């Protein structure tokens, strides 16, 4: 075999002339520094390779070596708590090896091959196992048990099962003999091509929410486990903050956080914060359930493109174990831009705004890997994808936002004017939507309260009505409105400031359980109803506002701790009493006149 050598270099794209030794999407080593690359196009004349690292210093004539397989993720215990670049190279190991700056041509293994895990076998010789079956387990973090599975496509009878004990990720745990008499030696490690979805037995209907503790999401625009959501917003509207909050507080078992083409300091912040924050439910640091993929904006663009798939593959692997996994992808626009950049280097015909014509199909393939699944071994797990979108010029009509909108079912539109007023989360309740409300109705009725949906609907109506009234107010001022409509505006203010706006830095307000969300809504509506009765009895709105009840409700999110909801009874009693007094006085006044 003649040696394959570099024929041309253009940025991250390298071409090899007249060779047939490569296959599509195969991983290759490029040059003497052995930079990692991937074959992305070929014809009889030349093979095109995208290189995941900086190509400075590469020469024509340097060798290119095939590795024989596609780009794979390494799946074994030790993934959690880690931080990786877009092609699953551990950044902490790289830092220990080469210092603060990332050099090229590194050869590091994704996971620690020497670390020993305490493995408990769950099968014995003679058992019959199929792909996806859990045959052993080990504690990966104090929070997560790592279930070691037979790789998909492998099955047979157990002819050897190792005793319980400590093994490294390459330790021989099991031997299977399949129907053809071939023996398969299994360790706790699997390798899986990142661009291929891992198989499952069936997709299950979506029926439960991913609770985030964020009121505007859980109550107004909920997302389901196994669902997809997009968070579009211009810069400074709080996309990253929203994703951080969800990653911290949502009730998924595992979080895969993909920092795709974003800021380095943000990843450092996630590392610091998640290591220090204690999950209130388990008492363990949040990092024990988190994997970080950090391919920051100044790291090579080809690896940025791969980072999304690496994250998906890790998420699907944990789903196969029966966990609920949530992926935060920040930001999918940077990934789309990576596609555009590479497409430009390949001189492909561009479609809209220079993006390649295959942008919509790539976006749909990405979001279709989410879902609530029945796994190969019959267990259930889910992958939820929450993707941030950074539209150019905050213009939602640009291609990435528009194409994303077609493939997600939950849309949290971040609004600049809310962000300017420092109303966070700046999710605009009138332009956002969730298609999951119908599917989740049963869950809310059973687990929260039959009242929940009607109460939510009433609150929505008040907000909608306020929206309409504000149009008038903008033209002629609030003074001319009748008192009943003024009351709608005041009630909507309580809902906006007291309920929808949430303080991520306040110890109680940063995460709010469903029950408290419901009670808050009920108290607000109670005040609205009572005040409406007063206004209808011709008590002036100024008198009603003068009670200070509206201001008190705006601050109740700070005054009522999450673990003592009995305080709501006091609020309700006070509202009823104060309003009853006003009514009595109003009645007297009426008689006197």
């Amino acid at each position, binding site marked *: 075999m003649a040696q394959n050598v570099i024929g041309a270099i253009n940025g991250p794209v390298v071409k090899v002339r007249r060779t047939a030794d490569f296959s599509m999407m195969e991983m290759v080593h490029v040059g003497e520094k052995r930079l990692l690359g991937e074959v992305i196009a070929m014809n009889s004349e030349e093979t095109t390779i995208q290189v995941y690292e900086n190509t400075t210093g590469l020469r024509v004539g340097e060798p290119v070596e095939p590795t024989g397989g596609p780009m794979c993720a390494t799946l074994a215990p030790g993934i959690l708590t880690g931080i990786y670049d877009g092609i699953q190279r551990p950044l902490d190991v790289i830092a220990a090896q080469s210092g603060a700056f990332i050099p090229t041509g590194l050869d590091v293994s994704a996971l620690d091959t020497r670390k020993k895990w305490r493995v408990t076998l769950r099968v014995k010789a003679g058992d019959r196992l199929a792909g996806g079956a859990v045959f052993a387990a080990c504690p990966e973090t104090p929070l997560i048990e790592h279930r070691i599975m037979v790789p998909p496509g492998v099955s047979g009878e157990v002819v050897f099962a190792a005793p319980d004990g400590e093994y490294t990720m390459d330790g021989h745990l099991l031997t299977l003999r399949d129907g053809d008499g071939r023996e398969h030696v299994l360790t706790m490690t699997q390798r899986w091509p990142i661009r291929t979805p891992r198989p499952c037995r069936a997709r299950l209907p979506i029926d439960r929410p991913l609770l985030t503790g964020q009121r505007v999401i859980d109550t107004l625009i909920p997302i389901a486990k196994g669902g997809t959501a997009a968070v579009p917003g211009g810069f400074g509207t709080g996309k990253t903050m929203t994703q951080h909050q969800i990653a911290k507080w949502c009730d998924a078992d595992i979080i895969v956080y993909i920092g795709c083409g974003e800021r380095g300091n943000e990843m450092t912040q996630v590392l610091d914060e998640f290591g220090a924050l204690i999950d209130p439910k388990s008492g363990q640091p949040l990092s024990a359930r988190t994997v970080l993929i950090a391919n*920051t904006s100044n790291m090579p663009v080809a690896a940025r493109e791969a980072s999304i798939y690496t994250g998906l593959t890790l998420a699907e692997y944990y789903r196969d174990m029966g966990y609920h996994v949530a992926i935060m992808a920040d930001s999918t626009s940077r990934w789309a831009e990576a596609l555009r950049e590479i497409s430009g280097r390949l001189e492909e015909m561009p479609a809209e705004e220079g993006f390649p014509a295959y942008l919509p199909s790539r976006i749909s393939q990405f979001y279709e890997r989410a879902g609530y699944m029945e796994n190969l071994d019959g267990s259930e797990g889910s992958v939820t994808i929450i993707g941030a979108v950074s539209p150019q010029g905050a213009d939602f009509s640009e291609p990435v936002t528009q194409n994303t909108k077609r493939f997600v079912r939950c849309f949290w539109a971040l609004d600049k004017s809310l962000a300017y007023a420092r109303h966070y989360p700046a999710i605009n309740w009138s332009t956002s939507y969730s298609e999951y409300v119908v599917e989740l109705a049963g869950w809310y009725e059973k687990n929260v309260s039959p009242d929940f949906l009607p109460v939510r609907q009433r609150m929505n109506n008040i907000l909608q009505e306020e929206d309409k009234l504000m149009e008038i107010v903008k033209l002629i001022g609030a003074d001319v409105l009748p008192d009943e409509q003024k009351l709608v505006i005041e009630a909507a203010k309580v809902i906006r400031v007291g309920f929808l706006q949430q303080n991520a830095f306040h110890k109680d307000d940063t995460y709010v359980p469903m029950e408290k969300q419901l009670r808050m809504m009920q108290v607000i509506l109670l005040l609205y109803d009572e005040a409406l009765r007063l206004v209808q009895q011709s008590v002036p709105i100024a008198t009603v506002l003068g009670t200070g009840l509206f201001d008190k409700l705006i601050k109740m999110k700070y005054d009522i701790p999450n673990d003592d909801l009995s305080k709501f009874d006091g609020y309700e009693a006070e509202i009823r009493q104060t309003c009853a007094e006003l009514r009595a006085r109003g009645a007297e006044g009426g008689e006197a006149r």
Partner: protein
Amino acid sequence: MKVERLGLQEINGPLVALDGVSGVSNEEVVELSLADGSVRTGRVIALDGARAVVQVFEGTAGLSLNGVRTRFLGHPLQLPLSPELLGRVFNGAGRPVDGLGGLYAEKYGDINGSPMNPVAREYPRNYIATGVSSIDCLVTLIRGQKLPIFSGSGMSHNQLAVQIVRQAQTAAQAGEKFGVVFAAMGVKNDVADYFRRSFDEAGVMGHVCMFLNLSNDPIIERILTPKCALTAAEYLAFEHDMHVLVIMTDVTAYCEALREFSSSKGEIPGRKGYPGYLYSDLASLYERAGLLKGKKGSVTQIPILTMPNDDITHPVPDLTGYITEGQIVLDRNLDHLGIYPPVSVLPSLSRLMKDGIGAGYTRDDHSAASAQLFASYAKVQDARALASVIGEEELAPSDRLHLRFGGLFERYFLNQGFTENRTIGETLDLAWALLSTLPREELDRVEPEVLAAHYDPEKAKRFQ
């Protein structure tokens, strides 16, 4: 292997092509000797078989196909580095232009740098006292941050940058080494001169290293200017423990140079003709700010960009805002009203401020004061919009109070002399005094205890 080659195969804009080369590496530096004895520099940007495409920094005017001798130097573009950088002036490609001769290099640095490993970064938390109320209180600058100034032609962004440098330097603690790296990209001669004079007057010139690419200098050098400046900044910060403030002006001119270069290469354009990789390219500059674990120094960036037609959705401010950790936006109306600095409060933002303010950094009431100022000032805008339709007389009482608050806020808080240096304590006290002109129940962003401690209508009387 220093073989000289005679002749070029193709000249197109700033690009030349050479055939029959071998052993040349990507991004390698090339020297081109002209018939008249002058020497130009270039670098390899693409290789295809035996053909190399070279970008010439000084432009290709005067080059001919057969009169040029080329030599490949065998290494990528490097900047000589030494602590002597401070006090010196270089051109955009890093060659001294102050007539003081070459630099005795301690080492050479690749101007492209390498990405910082997020694991090795230290999350920035220490605030920089700039002495400017609007910045300190509302868009706090943090050491290691990249915080651009979004301005427009004719506004006072240069004064603001100079004021920040001067006052931040006085606030630096004893024992801390302080340096300024200044990169001028396509600015007018007067502007470069203004900065030089101002640094001189402030007595900091000995701590400043300047890279000047003026508006009539070659555009390829303009593309190199910030890379050279940041290489110098990283070196001073992480090898000589200095706190380096990098001022880059004007990023819009840099992006236009990039566009010009990209179109001469025949690349497929993205939005407004800018290349599709503009985001990655800008990120490779801005991401070179930060702190590293175990190092004392820091790189803080204040890029300045002029928004064409004051349009914040133009690709340059737009992509910049997506990469940087906030932005300081200047407003033309405020500028016309004679308010300096004309900081437009609502669109301005510092993403890192939440962790760098409060007890132990600035003052415990800082976040409450800034949140309330933002919220109240947002209401001022609504009230103004309404007043312009129905007239001030018709406004509800609370709207009228906000209108008054808005005027006072702009006159006393935003407006500040070029030489006035306010401590953070003074700034926050002023903020509370202004907020106290509003009725107590309008301050809904503040927790009751904090409000009790700082709300004081007595203090507001000074604005009567």
